[in-house]
């Protein structure tokens, strides 16, 4: 009996990251990105791909493969149903995929909680910024605005649309949302020519325009980053728990804005090795310096934390999900 236990322990040891050093050596790890080259998800993946080998046992080659389509549901389906759970395929995709699952979008063939979560490489702070010369200095003043404030958006499912939509419908801010712009850059140009009064979006993408004093930040969602702590949070103005829950639900995925996962049923030792390497990579000073230069700021969230956030998103009572689906559609 004792001997048997020892044997089990020995096997356990053998499968520890130490033994895995051989398993990554000379192999190629592929990061599947659910978007075309050129976007934020792709840029982050390519940045990580260059530093990940340094921290993975055996220093494998890491390459990026783009698998766009269906707002990255295609990539998630592939990772869930096709990719081998051998640690050689990693996926990164749309942070809103949990929302797609929650609202039962057609075509979803994955259970987001069953992926082996490595973690998230960044969070995203959604803010609403309005033209600097508008008379409203604070969110309170904006809420009392008599005249309609026009907000440009790219379309439902994007934070340029959903964030101001909830401000309008749940907090009663006098906004008019005009959607259909081809990109957030396109909205920015509309702000320049005063076609619209402002836009919502990630702080990172808006920052150059805030620094140029074209727009000023006025309110943010739950997720935050340095320099924005004092900006009011939309949820704190919620008139009732239902409204608060809906706003919280919309912003939850922003805490895991660059999700990285392994296929379901990937053996625990491989997951552990990958998690460790991922954490080390994101805290690599060289990578941080490079990220600063490219304005892709990274923020590490562990796999366990990511799973906790997911549970929060997915364990909503039915009536909240129904209410939520009235406002928010899965997209981008």
């Amino acid at each position, binding site marked *: 009996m004792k001997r048997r236990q020892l044997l089990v322990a020995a096997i356990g040891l053998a499968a520890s990251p130490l033994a895995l050093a051989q398993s990554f050596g000379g192999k190629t790890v592929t990061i599947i990105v659910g978007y075309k080259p*050129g976007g934020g998800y792709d840029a982050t993946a390519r940045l990580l791909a260059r530093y990940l080998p340094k921290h993975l046992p055996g220093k494998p080659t890491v390459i990026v493969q783009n698998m766009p389509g269906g707002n990255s549901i295609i990539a998630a389906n592939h990772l869930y149903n096709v990719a081998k759970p051998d640690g050689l395929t990693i996926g990164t995709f749309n942070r809103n995929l949990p929302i797609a699952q929650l609202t039962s979008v057609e075509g979803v063939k994955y259970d987001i909680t069953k992926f082996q979560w490595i973690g998230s490489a960044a969070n995203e702070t959604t803010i609403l910024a309005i033209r600097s010369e508008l008379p409203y200095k604070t969110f309170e003043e904006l809420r009392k605005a008599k005249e309609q404030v026009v907000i440009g958006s790219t*379309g439902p499912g994007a934070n340029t649309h959903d964030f101001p939509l909830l401000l309008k419908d749940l907090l009663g801010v006098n906004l008019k949302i005009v959607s259909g712009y081809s990109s957030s850059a*396109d909205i*920015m140009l509309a702000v320049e*020519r005063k076609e619209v009064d402002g836009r919502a979006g990630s702080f990172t993408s808006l920052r*150059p325009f805030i620094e140029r004093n074209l727009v000023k930040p006025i309110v943010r969602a739950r997720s935050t980053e340095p320099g924005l702590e004092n900006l009011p949070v939309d949820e704190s103005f919620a008139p009732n728990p239902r409204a608060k829950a809906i706003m919280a639900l919309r912003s939850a995925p922003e805490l895991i804005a660059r999700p990285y996962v392994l296929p379901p049923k990937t053996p625990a030792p491989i997951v552990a090795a990958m998690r460790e390497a991922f954490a080390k990579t994101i805290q690599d000073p060289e990578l941080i310096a490079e990220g600063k230069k*490219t304005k892709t700021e990274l923020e590490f969230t562990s796999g366990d934390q990511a799973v906790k956030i997911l549970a929060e998103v997915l364990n909503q009572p039915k009536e909240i999900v129904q209410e939520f689906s009235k406002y928010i559609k899965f997209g981008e």
Partner: protein
Amino acid sequence: MLEALWEGLLLILQWKPFAFMLVGVLVGFWVGLLPGIGGATTLALMLPFIYTMQPVEAFAFLLGMHSVVATTGDITSILFGVPGEATTAAIILDGHAMAKRGEAGRALGAALTASLIGALIGAAALALAIPIVRPLVLTFGSPEMFMLAIVGLAFIASLSAQGARGMVRGFLAGGLGMMLAMVGQDPQAGVARFTLGTLYLWQGLDLVPVLVGLFAIPEIIDLAVRGTSIAGGVPAGRISRGALEGVKDVFRNFFLTIRCALIGTFIGITPGLGGAVAQWMAYGHATQSARTPEERKGFGAGDVRGVIGPGAACNSKEGGALIPTIAFGVPGSTSMAILLGGFFLLGLVPGPEMLTKHLALTFSLVWTIVLANVITVVVCALLLNRLAGLTNVAGHRLIPVILVLVFIGSFTSNSQYADILVTLVFGGVGYLMVVAGWPRAPLVLGLVLGKIAENYLYISVARYDAAWLARPVVVALLVVAAAVVCYPVFQAWRGRRRSQHA
């Protein structure tokens, strides 16, 4: 200002930036030749290489690469009828027809010269526009963009065959194109339209597989059926001889070249319309230069003006597209969005400062476009005989190679088998259209402009109700659109009158 212009040239002529530009040109050269792999994807892949470079070097590299892609894309389009880039499809209509007639050399000569002149005009426009760039771009709001799309759609009238029947077919094909543009999740309500229950179609039809199918497949079938080389029975010696003739053609139609280059620049400046539009508007404009109905019929059968027009527009738009990127930090295309990432990488914030503090760097960008194009055209001119000679290779040797390129090209757009399927389906559609004598150009124009028109119309109405209709530029563009639609009728009438007098 002149000083900065001079300084910009000196910046780029230092040996390191110049060397990096040459490397960029070399990469762009191949990317352009290969169908499917677009300039944007390559820019994204090359971005990591600039980390250690100085700003001037980095932009010499990236822009040098980007600005020659369209030039060499023309070559693939003309020789094989396979669009080298999504932005070089229009040149196929007459360019490849010329190649089949054994005039590949002349077509290449004309296309290369036209794109060189186009690039120079685009760069000159960029340099001249720098002082007035902000008011210029800001005049074009969503209502004006919608009207521009309408003007673009009006060119369907010129792209169709003459006569009532031809017009009806043209506008029907355009309507089909617009309907195809509706495929995918709509940006107002988030509803999935015409996606046939697949995830693949959520983000709409990709332009590359559609274009490759529509244009390349019918040509391949035609080549296989004829069982000869592309240039048929024309003796090898004659094919490349026409290059100089092509160069002369451009100068014979010099004002057309300039007008098409200006169309390209203008489309480039207005962010949101996209490079795929410029070539078709230029082609449509080129067909307007036909003086008699017989001349008009020659378009699509190998009129050199149909090569010059899109050739000139294609490269001139690059200079234009840089304008909104530099002046506002707002990119006019995917490629420019990636280039913008390059700016950040180097610690530069595009915006008004690029026109004041960093003016010399801005001018070095202009010079890069000019130099890269001059170099490419010279190199292509040297290779011209060999390239044109390819049209004399027997079809059964060429077809497998072209097929591989075609399918790899369309597969690279999404890396999905559905890409191949789309290519095949549109290949079938394209073949049937050719056989039945329906024009393909209006379909493409509808496809490229449909979404733009829809979105900007929605924005205009949502933002301004009906008041946008009274904006002066909108009214002016409406008049232009009406004129464009009516022009073929006028053309036909003038033609009739001439023949009566004769």
